Structures are given as structure tokens and as C-alpha cells.
């Protein structure tokens, strides 16, 4: 056969090229550490894909580059030289239709089985409700008296079912070390299952464009030992009533996402800073000037569009804080007033 020698050389080069490509991919395409059972399983599929990519990349590129080098027109060739004349080869065409078909079916079955594995409910799951809003996260533990916080803390080795929803636009929950991702849809609750395997500190970052501060919609995720988790939840749920109102106010400000737009250090974010706000004179967008006293602050939290601080846009701040606060206060049997706490906290920023 005319090309036998060429094919032999190419075959060797493809093997060498595939191994080289795989080593290259291994060097430049690192995944973050795997910190969940799902991540370990998914990384196996990643590896399978990288092997396939390396082989196919080398296969196509080696053939093309070999042709470029060996089958180029040489200086000694006459001006009107033509290549070999053949139109195609039905056997080959059928072969390179069937071969990829088999490969994609194998990967499809692998993917489908893996997917059913990672979404299957486990026994003794712990439920955490995740709620997103522009541009903050809230995590509620229904099995621990609906305790709510702005960081996600989970015990290692405990299967967890996250129930995700959004209060405004689409968001997406993604901790790269867990590998799995799920959008948060307003008006709907969707599930995501994770079994953390490595203690450590991670972050969840919103992965679906959600407006101005999308890049900064980040919360801490901590995986801790079972005892540390029990201690943390014990400490967090009991002490809040005993705190000073201003200290509680600071916690609420984080938990309800206020600090996403209102800084405590004078930085201009999407909303006015709270530093030196209390009792200061404020220019409104309507042209009026008002004093930022307690009434103004409470009104601005409950009805944010009423009095717009000049230089800031309306309709950015959520308008449902009255309901959210009431639901939260119920957990403490009305022993706390979130509005009063927030005012007390804002007051301390002017002292």
C-alpha cells in the first residue's frame, strides 16, 4: 500500500502526541482540591474526558501537521503539480462515524449513571435552606430551630440536602471544591446534594449574573468536625438574645445582606455608607434635605424608594424587609427587634 510507511510513522507520532498532550493538560488544567464525595466521583469523569481529549487532539493535529510537512509542494516540483487523485473511502467514512458514536454513548452512559448517583437522596440527610438575594446569601437550619446565618457551616461526612430559592433574580450556588452547581430561582425551590469530605474553609460565589455587585456575592463555607458543628450551632443560637442591641445589629446587617451595599467604613457601594450617617443632613434626589434620624432610617429600610439619597438609584434595595424581619423575630419569640438593633448599630457608626 502506497501510504503504509506514512501511516506507520503517523501512528507512532499520535501515540507520542497523545501522551504529551495528556501531560500538558495535567500540568495546566488543575482542578481545585476535591472536598466532597460528589467531587471525587466527578473527577473520575474529568480524567476520562482529558484522556479522550488528548487522544483526539493528537490524532487530528498529527495527521494535519504531518501532511503540512510531508505533502507540501517542494521547490523542485513543477508549477502545475497536482496531488494524488482520490475522492473518498466509504469504509473509512463509516468507521469514523461509528467509532465516535460508540465513544459518545460510553461517555453518555457514564455521565447518566454518575448523575443519578449524585442526586440520589441519602439516608439521614441534614437540610439547609439557602436563599439568595442581590447580593448576599442566607443559610437557614430548619433542624436547629430555623437558625439563620450568612455563612454556611457543615459537619464533615454528613450528607446534606440544600434547598435553594431566590428572593429576587436568578443566582447560582457554586463551591468549586464541591464541583456541583445549582441555580436559585425565585418562586421555586430546587435541591442540591453534597456530602463534604474535607474540613476546611471555602467560598460560595454566585455563578449566574445577577446585577451590579454579582462579582461580590460571596459567602464563607466552612466544613468542620461534627463536634465543632454542634458547638457552633449551640453557641450561635443561644447567645444572640443576650448580646447588646448594637452587636446584634451588626450581625443582622450581615445576615440580611445590608453590608453588600452599605459600608461601615465610608466606601461608596451601591448604597450610601453608614459611617457618620446617623443624624447627618442628607440631600434627597427630590431636592429636599432631611436629617437622618431614627424615623428616616426605619422608613428607608421598610420603604426604600420613599426617600432616595441623591446620587443613588431607586429599585436596587429589596422592599420586603418587614416580612423578613417578622419571620426572623418569631424565632426569638419577639424578644428582639431587628429594626431597633439596626438603628442602634448605625448609631454606633456615628459616635
Amino acid at each position, binding site marked *: 500500500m502506497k*501510504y503504509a510507511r506514512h501511516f506507520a510513522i503517523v501512528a507512532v507520532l499520535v501515540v507520542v502526541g497523545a501522551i504529551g498532550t495528556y501531560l500538558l493538560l495535567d500540568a*495546566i*488544567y488543575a*482542578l*481545585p482540591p476535591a472536598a466532597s464525595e460528589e467531587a471525587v*466521583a*466527578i473527577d473520575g*469523569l*474529568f480524567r476520562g*474526558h482529558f484522556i479522550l*481529549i488528548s487522544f483526539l*487532539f493528537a490524532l*487530528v*493535529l498529527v495527521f*494535519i501537521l504531518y*501532511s*503540512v510537512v510531508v*505533502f*507540501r*509542494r517542494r521547490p523542485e516540483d513543477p508549477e502545475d*503539480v*497536482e*496531488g494524488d*487523485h*482520490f*475522492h*473518498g473511502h466509504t469504509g473509512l*467514512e463509516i468507521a*469514523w*462515524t461509528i467509532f*465516535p458514536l460508540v465513544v459518545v*454513548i460510553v*461517555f*453518555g452512559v*457514564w*455521565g*447518566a449513571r454518575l*448523575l443519578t448517583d449524585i*442526586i440520589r437522596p441519602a439516608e439521614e440527610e441534614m437540610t439547609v435552606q439557602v436563599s439568595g438575594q442581590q447580593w448576599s446569601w442566607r443559610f437557614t437550619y430548619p433542624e436547629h430551630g430555623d437558625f439563620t446565618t450568612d455563612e454556611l457551616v457543615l459537619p464533615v461526612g454528613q450528607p446534606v440536602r440544600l434547598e435553594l430559592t431566590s428572593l*429576587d433574580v*436568578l443566582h*447560582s450556588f457554586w463551591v*468549586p471544591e464541591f464541583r*456541583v*452547581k445549582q*441555580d436559585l*430561582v425565585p*418562586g*421555586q425551590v430546587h435541591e442540591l446534594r453534597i456530602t463534604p469530605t474535607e474540613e476546611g474553609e471555602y467560598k460560595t*460565589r*454566585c*455563578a*449566574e*449574573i*445577577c*446585577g*451590579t455587585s*454579582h*462579582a461580590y456575592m460571596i459567602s464563607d463555607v466552612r466544613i468542620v468536625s461534627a463536634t465543632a458543628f454542634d458547638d457552633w450551632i449551640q453557641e450561635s443560637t443561644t447567645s444572640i438574645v443576650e448580646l447588646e442591641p448594637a452587636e446584634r445589629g451588626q450581625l443582622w446587617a450581615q445576615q440580611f445582606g445590608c453590608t453588600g451595599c452599605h459600608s461601615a467604613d465610608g466606601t461608596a457601594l451601591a448604597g450610601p455608607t453608614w459611617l457618620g450617617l446617623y443624624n447627618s443632613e442628607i440631600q434627597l434626589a427630590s431636592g429636599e434635605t432631611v436629617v437622618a434620624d431614627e424615623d428616616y432610617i426605619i422608613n428607608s429600610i421598610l420603604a426604600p424608594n420613599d426617600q432616595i439619597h441623591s446620587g443613588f438609584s431607586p*429599585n436596587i434595595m429589596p422592599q420586603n424587609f418587614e416580612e423578613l424581619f417578622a419571620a426572623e423575630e418569631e424565632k426569638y419569640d419577639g424578644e428582639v427587634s431587628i429594626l431597633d438593633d439596626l438603628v442602634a448599630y448605625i448609631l454606633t457608626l456615628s459616635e
Partner: protein
Amino acid sequence: MAFLRSLARFLYYFLTSGLVRALVGQTIGMLIGYGLVAGIRALMGLEPAREAAWVAGAFLGVFTSLLAAGVLGDWLRWATGRETKLRHGPPPGRPEWTRYLGVDYNHKVIGIQYGVTSILVLLVGGILALIFRIELAAPGMQFLTPDTYNTIFSAHGIIMIASILAGVGAMGNYLVPMMIGASDMAFPRLNAFSFWIGVPSAMLLIAAMFVQGWDTGWVAYPPLSVRGPLGTQLFLLGFYLNGFSSIASAINILVTVLTMRAPGMSLFRMPIFVWGSVAASIIQFTATQTVGLALLMVTMQRLFGLGFFDATYSVAGIPPGDPILYQHLFWFYSHPVVYVFVLPGLGVISELLPVFSRKPLFGYKWIALSSLAIALVGFLVWSHHMFTSGMSEFLRIPFMFSTLLVAVPTGVKFFSWIGTVWGGKLTFPTPMLFVLGAISVFLIGGLSGPILGTVPTDLHLHDSYWIVGHFHATMFGGFVFPFFAAIYYWYPKITGRMYNETLGKLHFWLMVPGFWVMSLGQMRIGLLGMRRRIADYDPALGVDFTQTLITIAALVIGWSILIMLYNLASSLRAAPVAAPNPWNSRSPEWQVPSPMPEFNYDQPFVVVGEPYDYGLADSTYVNMSPAPTGD
């Protein structure tokens, strides 16, 4: 004095051109529409409702723009029972160049109008990309605010799509009639309409950036797109109106190919590019409507509060709206449309490879049918954009299989290209280099796809920079590189002159390595956890160095494209006159003088052989002067 007089003449021709009239017409229409709605509401004692007034102005402005440009003239005369002649040639009493700025019915003029528009819009989109690439070179905010960042990346997306669609229009309009031996498109007036409705739509997209901008990306997912500022609304309308262009030009291409081929040109004897163009047109003709519907529904939710996508809107026990429904409607078009971008590009690769390999195209029928197969399978895969959206969990599995299936016809193309170059006598002028560059880049794009197709790996990669790397590689490999190859290849046909080969090669050797670095870098940071569409990133991700590298690579790509533009512009007058058939091609358009005559072929040719029989002695594809058929 002579200079002043020629300047005055130029200004006169420019200011009375169809383009200027279109823009003035649009402005006047917008003002009237805005005034009507605002005025009526004022008379009724209602608030001004700025957005509704803008929408009325936008619709009226498109109509008056087309009217002022002169696109609708013939149709309006027909409606009143008058006949019109199909005008061809330069406008009477005006210089030749003015026909490119006005309404013209010649498919080659329209093709060039599309091509120039495509490149200008590409420059706008490219500059936007470079602005935010420089912002992303380091963590922290450098010189943009998050809101301007969001507007710029959103605009980059839709503006590049407009550019690519114009580029697809350029190739289809210029090449298809020429390749099949037709004197023009089947519907020349509709052809002009397709181009000219793009002008006001593009203006709306650009205006959207300046009226408060928008932050939804080009996908405009509700509820964000329902809550977004006024810019969102203008973007929705610009996107919507551009759809008319797609649908009308697709009809034109399909009818032209089906009814106007030269004698003897059976479907399997057409130049292979035509197959790519037909497959792309089938998609444009049948899928564009759903995205138009989705965009209109968002508009109605914004204007009238109709809660199609509002999950909190429920009256008297009626089920609420569903934000995910939008994503189904959107991707039912917006996935297939990527094949509209790449199928003509892949057609260019298949068209040029045999010419520069001096060999027949390997497996012509397989390549032709694989284009149709990609178009067909492309309709069945849209939900892979929604694997994390919250759609039905197990419905993801059939969509995973259909998505992976795209690899099969795509593989057929790659393997057939190998068969084409194997055993040839390859030469490497600039167009061939860009074809080979396209294959390498499309390979990166293609191979980074299946890992997104399998759901478990997609759960990590979704909305990450892996996606950004993947689709830029498919768009550059499937469209941008082939488009540039086509520009260099047909430049002597269009202008009659030869571009500068050294500058062409310089362009290639800057752009290809630049693109590899950019694309591979984007995939790397995506794996590490870099999200798409973020103005700022956490240094803790460990991606700073790669980000800087990507920015440098993007700047290199930008500079290389400026070199191409300089090359094309400076070769227009100064370069040597090109040989009539510089590539020694068998294709019919190279058998007649360059630039192409007004009606392409003085007498119709007859197809007497296979299109790509390079190396077969005494064979030709077309007989340019067939004996008269004694009638």
C-alpha cells in the same frame, strides 16, 4: 479650490446617501413615536411612562428609517398598482462608490455592505472586549465600575453576534449566486431589506449602552431583564428587530439555491460552501421566531406587567409564570444559531482545502450531509445550556445524549479534512494558513465541548470561564478564522488586486498563537473556579498570572486585526493587479474577469464535471462557453 470643490462634492454625496437618510429617518421616527405616546398620556393626565414612549419610538423609527433609506419604495409603488423596473448598476449621475452607501439590489454590493458592516461592528465589539480585558488583567477594580463593566460585557456579546451574522450574510450574499451561476439573488429587494433593517437595529443596540446600560448579558434572563434599566428594553428591541434580517435573508438563500442553479449543477455538484450556507439558512428560517417571541414576552412583562416569567404572579389559583420557560424559548434559537455562525465557516474550510492541496475534497457527500446533520441535531440539544437551571432533573439525560451526538457529524468533517490534505501538494498562502489555523482552533473548541455535554462535569464547568474559552474557540475556529481566510481568498475577486502576502502572514502568525494562549488560558482559570461575567475576581483563586496572559494575548489579536485592515485598505489602490485566477481554482467565479461583472456571467455556464477533481487530467467543472442550444 479644486480640493474644496471635490470635498464639497464628497460631502454632498455622503449626506444624501441612503445610510445618512436611514439614520436621520430613524431619529425623526423615534422622536415622533416618543412624542405621540408621551403626548397622549399627558393629555390623559397620566405619568409620562418613558419606557413605553421609547418602545413606540423604536418601532416607528425602524419603519421611517427603512422608508427614508428607500428600501420600501418599490414595494409601496407595487401596493398602489405601479410597476417598477429592477434598477441595476451605479446610481445615475453619481459616482460608483455611492452605491455602497445606499440601497442597491446587486447581491455583490449587498455582500460587500454586509462585509464592511461586519468588520466595523467587529471592531466596536473588539474594543469593548479589550476594555474589560484590561480591567480583568489584575484583581480589584482598575478603572471601570461594576455597572459599566456589566454593560460593556453584555454589549460585547450581542454586538459580536450582530457582527458574525453580518459576516455570514456577507459570505452568503456575495458567494452563493456567483458559485451557482445565478445573476443575482431570487429576491433582490428583500435582500436589500435584510441588510437595511440591520442598520436601525444596530443603532438601538448602541443606544442601549448609553441610556443607563444593561446588565443581563446577551441572554437577558428574567427576572433580571424585567427589572433592568431602560437600556435593557432597547437591547431587547434591537435584538428582536435583527431577527427579521435573519429570516428574510435565509428565505432568499434557500430559494436562490433551489431554483437558480446553472444547468447540470445537481445538489451534489454544488460548491461545498453552498451546502454550509443552505444548512445555516434552514436554521435561521425556522428557529429565529422563538427567540423573537421570548424577547417580546419580556418586553410585554416590562411594559404591561404580563407575568409570563414571573413566578410570584398568581391570581385566583392560576399557576404562576415560570422564569425557566424563558430559557427554553431563548436557547431553542440561540443554540442552533451557533451553527448558523459556524456552518458557513466550515464550508469555507472545505471549499479552500482542495484548492491549496491540489486534491479532490475527501468524501464530498459525507461533508455535505454532515452539515445538514449538524443543523438537525442542533435543534435537539438546547437544554444543555440549562443543566443547572432547575429544569426537570432527569430530562437532563436525553439532552446529554443528543448533545454528545453533535460530535459525530463534526468528527466526519475533521476526518474528511485530513483525507483531503493527505497525499496532496500543499501550498501556504495566507488563505490556506487561516484555514489551517481555523482547523486547529475549531479542534480546541470542539474537543472542549463533550466535557460540557456530560452533566456531572458540566455542574462544575457551567457558567465558568471554561465555557468562555470553549465558545470563543468554536466561534473563532468556526467563523472568524474562516471568514478572514475567505476575505484574503476572494479579495482579488472583489477588488481585482492582490493583498500584501507578507502582511497577511504576519497577521496569521500573531493571531493564531495569540488565540491559543487566550483560549487555553480561559479554560484553565475556569477549571480553577473563575466565574463568567464578573467584574472582579478573588486573588485567592490563583488566576492572576493567567488573567494577565489572557489580556496580553487579546491585545495581540487586536493588533493583528488592525494589520489586516491596513493590508486590505492599502492594497485597494496600490497593490498589483491580480491574475484572473490566482489560486488556479476550478470554481466558476474564477473563470471570469475580476472584479466580477455586474451580472456575473455574460452567458450561463454548464456544469460538466465534479467541482473538486484536482489532479484528474483533462477534467473541468464548468464549461464557460457552451454551444448555443439551438432554440
